[in-house]
């Protein structure tokens, strides 16, 4: 190394701000790969709240096969090990400063890791949940009880929403935004009306939506400001059969006119509408472009 007079700065005592700026371009694997093990200054920079406000784990998907018994997936051990390592180190460095937590839709998160994560992210405001398969009722309940500041949640649909919505209602006083990735039937809509009447933003895009459920939502969620039902298959169930509704009638449009934003798309030529139809109202996101599942016409819900 040539001899040259510097003003005393070396890599060891580089400005923390500059280090944080360098680390900001790192993905979750790079952030947890050992830069926090270099020296004290670097370790301090790695824990900077700016780096952990959003914990984006969407690079982590499970390596799995489908099985006919609960939980209907078998995840390979290496896949789980990688997830465990990255999650533990990330949560350790984040020092409880995580505000937004994003999981990939195709991650089969084990129940104990959900609990572990919740305990170390008490400031959480926004949550994007992974697949439900390995998560137990007790696990998600405990987690939500820890997340008292939760405002926004994106989740795959579940068969029995009441226990979940009730837990949110009881624990998360600021909860106002929900996105369900999957069908919404009358039961689901009634649950929202009962437990989350103060909901302000709701997205049900790209799924089967029952017309009756839509009416329950429009009538029952009096504080709703934004409703996104783009690319949904709207069905009407009568005594004899299921009809697909191709146009929103006057009464629905009238009810929806009080909303600040009513996002719809029921266009036969729209590729997303076609895809929802082909997938029979339950989008198989893994079939399509990487990251397509992250989109939403509502800007606060888009990733």
């Amino acid at each position, binding site marked *: 190394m040539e001899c040259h007079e510097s*003003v005393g*700065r070396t890599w060891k005592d580089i400005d923390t701000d500059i280090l944080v700026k360098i680390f900001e371009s790192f993905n979750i694997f790079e952030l947890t790969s*050992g830069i926090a093990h270099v*020296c004290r200054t670097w370790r301090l920079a790695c824990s900077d709240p700016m780096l952990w406000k959003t914990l984006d784990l969407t690079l982590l998907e499970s390596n799995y096969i489908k099985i006919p018994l609960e939980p209907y997936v078998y995840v390979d051990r290496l896949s789980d090990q990688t997830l465990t390592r990255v999650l533990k180190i990330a949560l350790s460095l984040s020092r409880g400063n995580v505000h937004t937590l994003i999981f990939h839709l195709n991650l089969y998160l084990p129940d104990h890791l959900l609990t572990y994560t919740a305990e170390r992210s008490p400031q959480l405001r926004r949550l994007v949940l992974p697949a439900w398969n390995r998560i137990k009722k007790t696990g998600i309940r405990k987690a939500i009880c820890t997340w008292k500041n939760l405002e926004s949640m994106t989740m795959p649909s579940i068969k029995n929403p009441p226990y979940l919505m009730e837990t949110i209602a009881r624990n998360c006083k600021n909860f106002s935004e929900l996105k369900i990735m999957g069908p919404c039937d009358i039961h689901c809509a009634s649950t929202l009306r009962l437990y989350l009447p103060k909901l302000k933003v709701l997205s049900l895009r790209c799924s089967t939506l029952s017309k009756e459920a839509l009416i329950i939502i429009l009538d029952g969620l009096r504080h709703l400001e934004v409703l996104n039902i783009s690319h949904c298959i709207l069905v009407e169930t009568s005594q004899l059969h299921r009809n697909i509704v191709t146009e929103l009638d006057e009464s629905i449009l009238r009810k929806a006119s009080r909303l600040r934003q009513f996002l719809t798309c029921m266009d036969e030529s729209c590729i997303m509408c076609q895809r929802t139809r082909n997938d029979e109202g339950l989008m198989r996101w893994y079939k399509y472009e990487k990251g397509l599942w992250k989109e939403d016409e509502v800007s606060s819900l888009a990733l």
Partner: protein
Amino acid sequence: MSSKKITLKSSDGETLEVEVAIAVQSQTIKHMIEDDCADGGIPLPNVTSKILAKVIEYCKKHVENSKKEDSIEEEDELKEWECNFLQVDQQILCDLIHAANYLNIKSLLDLTCRRVADMIKGKTPEEIRRTFNIKNDFTPEEEEEVRRENKWALE
């Protein structure tokens, strides 16, 4: 057309005359000129003459480039130039980052940070220490934390 020049004074007492259009690539210098503090030259106590010369070289190239037409060839040529520009030893790269930060030259700071990021990615902590000549200065408690995190990698 005469181009206005400004005098910059480095930490080691040398002076450099630079066209204003080039000097104001640095927001720090720009604000000093705007606030009328530039009479008699601008002192830069945090930058040596050697580093200042490199910084000015960068700013000059960027001013020249902004006058040219946007094209793929120009972009490629700039990228190559920037790559060569950064063929420097560790200490100079370190000083360049600090200078870009102090002088508030966003594009140079972004460039040098990207370069350092690329030098870090894929390396183990020991390899990083060797590359950047850093000593492991963890306290015993911190060393214990590090050991715990490393265990998670093996579980």
